[in-house]
């Protein structure tokens, strides 16, 4: 029986490559034949964004980041096309650019209640596909309820900042690891993979770690020589 491999993923809810990377990672896991335990960690791409930002992602990237509008449109068109190739139907016309700190707190709340993976998928889908708002506590609580969390307790926890420290600890850990962009995958606490890599890259890394774990369990170093029958 193979040993479960821990994968820590730094990601933001409003990162288009993170949703794409999630799909590619999931495909890589399936192809690898390994068992993984995934834990999502917080990374804030735009912590200065107001919750009720009056504008679209195009407005945000052009006005706040100074990227010319034609370039922003080209970037979004490209990422939307790549999302489509992995089965994700991004709808940037309905995206609500917002601050994601409360969404990250909710992900920590969901982790504490054993539903982090469900919550992560739900938040990404709400933001990129369904035109949901992932910055306001009431909207987040509605979403939390759909994955089986207690709506009233979510409102309480987010209002009282129960998991703010956990979010900040994740951000600090990202700095410590030298993570400058997301998605960022840390496999077995020691190997890093940055970006929405192809499934093969994830599968290869997972097989490598599985081999190392098997060798360690057997008390031997992993063989680098091929065996010929």
């Amino acid at each position: 029986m193979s040993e479960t491999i821990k994968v820590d993923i730094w990601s933001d809810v409003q990162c288009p490559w993170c949703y794409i990377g999630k799909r590619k990672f999931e495909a890589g896991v399936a192809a690898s034949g390994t068992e993984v335990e995934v834990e999502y960690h917080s990374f804030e791409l735009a912590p200065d964004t107001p919750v009720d930002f009056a504008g679209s992602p195009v407005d945000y990237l052009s006005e706040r980041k100074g990227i010319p509008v034609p370039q922003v449109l080209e970037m979004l068109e490209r990422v939307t096309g790549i999302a489509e190739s992995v089965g994700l139907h991004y709808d940037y016309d309905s995206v609500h650019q917002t601050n994601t700190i409360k969404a990250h707190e909710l992900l920590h709340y969901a982790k504490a209640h054993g539903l982090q993976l469900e919550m992560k998928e739900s938040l990404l889908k709400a933001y990129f596909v369904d035109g949901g708002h992932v910055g306001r506590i009431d909207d987040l609580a509605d979403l939390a309820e759909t994955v089986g969390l207690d709506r009233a307790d979510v409102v309480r926890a987010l209002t009282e900042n129960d998991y703010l420290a956990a979010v900040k600890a994740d951000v600090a850990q990202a700095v410590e690891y030298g993570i400058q962009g997301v998605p960022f995958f840390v496999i077995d606490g020691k190997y890093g993979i940055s970006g929405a890599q192809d499934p093969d890259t994830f599968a290869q890394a997972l097989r490598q770690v599985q081999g190392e774990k098997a060798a360690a369990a057997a008390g031997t170093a992993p063989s680098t020589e091929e065996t010929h029958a």
Partner: protein
Amino acid sequence: MSETTPTGTVTDTVPAARPIIQLLEQDDTAGGCCGGGSCGI
């Protein structure tokens, strides 16, 4: 790590250094988000 002082024991709360993450072989052009910096989104 801790240190004993005249008023008691002071515990060093700085966490132990984490092992440096080793980047595996990967495509450096794969998409990622860095908050509107060099990678745009």
